[in-house]
């Protein structure tokens, strides 16, 4: 019973994560690195081992904008 639901949940998580196990205990460093991976590959869990970044990578880092409080 538990085995079936555990297996089904882990299969769903693997499908959501591109065939890999889900990440847990993700801290700000990991979030920053996963955002960088998304900018490099287009997927949050995508990985690549190219040496040089694609053109335009150095300009794709976004500023988070918020309205000022007055």
């Amino acid at each position, binding site marked *: 019973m538990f085995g079936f639901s555990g297996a089904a949940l882990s299969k769903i998580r693997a499908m959501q994560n591109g065939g890999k196990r889900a990440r847990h205990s993700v801290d700000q460093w990991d979030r920053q690195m996963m955002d960088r991976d998304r900018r490099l590959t287009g997927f949050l869990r995508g990985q690549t*081992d190219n040496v040089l970044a694609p053109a335009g990578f150095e300009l794709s880092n976004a500023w988070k904008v918020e309205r000022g409080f007055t």
Partner: protein
Amino acid sequence: MASRQPRFNQQVLIDTTPLPDSIPKVPEIGSSSAPLLSASYFIGARCKAYNDDYMLCKTESNGKGETECLKEGRKVTRCAASVLEDVNKSCLQQFREHWECLDNNNQQLWQCRRWERPLNKCVFDNLNLEKKIPGAPTNEIPVHLRKRQIFAHSIATQ
């Protein structure tokens, strides 16, 4: 003002203005998190001087490090790119197996020692770079050389 992280942001702004031409252009590293983690100790072995220089510059610049330490940062990028290129050329298969294992295991190095050992051996033979953990006590075996990893999930991947 802009000195703290934004808390309530609803929009992002992507500024596509490139750097001025007076700054030499160095291409950014194209590896994502798992290959970088896998190669990190080798980058540290070769690029220790440049990395220490950059960190010292950032510490001493009192908040202005983004603009004042560009030169040291270019050296760091070039050195790390050279390490990654050499590892790609000589040990690509062991490197790929190691970082694919890391990607599957929440980027935890102790789950993937089984693939780390052939990678370390190959890099040491071809590139003469040895992985050393800085600050490890010298009277014990370093963690990456121990036979039994106490936190690994399974024996097969140790």
